[in-house]
């Protein structure tokens, strides 16, 4: 059974058809890419999967469970983590708090525990903190744990966002243009990091990119959409030579 199954996904914003009849079977362990020009509907697909919007039509199954109608935090708790195209960290909180809060769904103690500081509360909080620090350690961010996020440089904020997504204990990680705003050197490092995360955390990864160049190297399979329609699907080489893709990207930036 595929990890993620999307059938006939369609979404309208008022009269605007942002996504049309999108289909996908994502197997466990895959690393795939979704590309398309500006406004093609890529981010909307992520928003539909994570429950930020409710699709006009179609169904989405994750690990056999229907996701339609679930609230975003429930979907996240089922094992789908994501990052955002424009960074959406909780800016005035510390790095550590950002990571801690992302483990909200794993909390089992109740309010009363948190108010009375019961044993259960202390144990769980200790565990959350330990795990957060370990995650930060892995990304060499531990020394920044108490830094307020807003004070970090852009690149580190991107990393913190990935760590935060991992803190939700995902099985599928959705990355929305992780390379946006990075220079070629940083992009190379990022791609290595992504491959490493995939192995280390045993993840299935789906990356949105706007620039084709970025994911050609690491994705096994790529889907191309334009104006909400799927216009191509295949290995990087197939995509690179597909005439419809070339046409969609003509005047954009080429290869």
């Amino acid at each position, binding site marked *: 059974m595929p990890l993620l199954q999307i059938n006939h996904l369609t979404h309208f914003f008022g009269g605007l058809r942002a996504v049309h009849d999108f289909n996908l079977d994502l197997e466990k362990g895959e690393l795939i890419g979704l590309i398309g020009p500006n406004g093609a509907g890529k981010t909307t697909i992520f928003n539909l999967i994570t429950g930020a919007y409710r699709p006009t039509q179609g169904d989405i199954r994750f690990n056999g469970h229907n996701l339609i109608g679930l609230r975003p935090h429930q979907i996240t708790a089922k094992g789908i983590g994501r990052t955002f195209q424009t960074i959406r960290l909780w*800016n005035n*909180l510390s790095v550590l*708090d950002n990571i801690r809060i992302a483990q909200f769904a794993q*909390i089992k103690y109740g309010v009363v525990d948190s*108010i*009375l500081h019961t044993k259960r509360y202390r144990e769980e909080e200790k565990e959350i903190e330990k795990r957060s620090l370990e995650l930060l350690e892995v990304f060499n961010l531990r020394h920044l744990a108490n830094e307020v996020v807003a004070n970090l440089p852009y690149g580190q904020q991107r990393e913190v966002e990935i760590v935060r997504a991992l803190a939700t204990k995902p099985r599928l990680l959705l990355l929305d243009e992780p390379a946006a705003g990075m220079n070629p050197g940083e992009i190379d490092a990022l791609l290595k990091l992504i491959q490493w995360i995939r192995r280390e955390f045993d993840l299935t990864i789906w990356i949105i990119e706007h620039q084709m160049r970025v994911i050609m190297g690491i994705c096994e399979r790529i889907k191309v959409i334009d104006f909400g329609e799927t216009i191509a699907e295949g290995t990087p080489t197939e995509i690179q030579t597909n005439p419809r893709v070339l046409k969609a990207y003509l005047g954009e930036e080429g290869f």
Partner: protein
Amino acid sequence: MAQLPRRIREFLGRIPLLAYLLGFLAATGIESILGKTLGLLIGLGGVPAFFGITDSLSRLVLDKGLGGVLLSLPSVFIYFVLALVYDVLIYILPVFIVAGLLSRPVRWFVSTLPEWLTGFIHMVTLFLSLWTWGGLVEYRLLVVMYIGVNIIMTTSLNLINGYMGEFSCGHAGFMAVGAYVSSVLTVWLFTQDDVFGAPVLRAGWSVILFPLILVVGGIAAAIMGLLVAFPSFKTRGDYLAIVTISVNFIIKSAIENIEKIGGPRGFMGMKGVLRTMESVLNVPWLLIWTFIGVLVTLVVIHNFVSSTKGKGVVAIREDEIAAELMSVNTRHTKILAFTISSFFAGIAGGLFAHVLGYINPGTFTIFKSTESLVMVYLGGMGSISGSVLSAGIFTLAMEALRPLEVWKKVLIWLLLILLMMFRREGIMGGKELTDFVSLERLGLRRPVKEVKGYAPAAD
């Protein structure tokens, strides 16, 4: 010479909190023995209630136009200077002398005790000094309890407006629910009343049930809080402000329309409840419960917002959509925040009603809500110690400025506007007191290494 102020500052900074509290206790003791004599001696005519501010301002002549005001200024000034002498002699000197002398012994004493006991001793000392200070002039005790009520109101509103970043301006509505529910219950159960008849329970129960009834009032208010929590799923910002205001108005109008509890005329009889309680055991019940109420509020809200679960509240403020997408159950969190917040508003209401002895729907209007807002913003959003400070300062100022009559209110609102213009982050700027002075330095926590705790915190 330039070294002197710094050295004084350093010396004062090393004095533990408990020594200051003991100093204040000593000062109140001195005042109760010598205050009246000294007041008569220097021409104040007795013990000045609020450090002489109220008494000097009451010499202002307000009803004879600007000329009257100007002509009365010299007498205001003279009284004020005399009162200042009194304050220095009775408060400032004793506090600092006692605190300075006790500094070392207290630090040693505190370091031998477990932390919970240290905290307890602080609380008892604070309570005793408030009690002696308030006992001297009855009006003071009332103000001390108002301060307590306002601390509860402010911290609980801060949970919504500061930590969660929503804009609730109907906090007085929840206060009203708590006030009415608990008053009706106590009056019905423990006093002879025109409407509710003879007391239902024997007097002895009043002492035991009083805190429980306060909690019942709080729960009633918390249920009303749901009226705000549910709309907050869909709307935020301006619209939520509108919802909260209308809930405030609805609660007020609803009470006005219930004849049985006095309708617009109000409800009384709570003084009788107090008499019943005092007949069982003559201790300052309300002061005790207000004090405990404040402590519980502070502990609950502090513990909640510093837990991971409670930090969901702050995540909502920072970015609600990201919070929901990053596994925070935002609805659940909002319901929690609103119920906790309105629960404590209800508790504050119950205490307030019994302190005042009389309530009417007009007490719990948007004015009262806005006063709570002023205190929240004055103290700084998202700062509990800020809320405590501002509630104290604000309430004292309001009482001290009472002789200014309506113009006092003009001053408050002007203060609010200026605050928004020039210091939006409030007194504490979103920080806690402990960000400036460590608990070790205050002597509330044992220093990690023996000597290090004595060093002034690095700036």
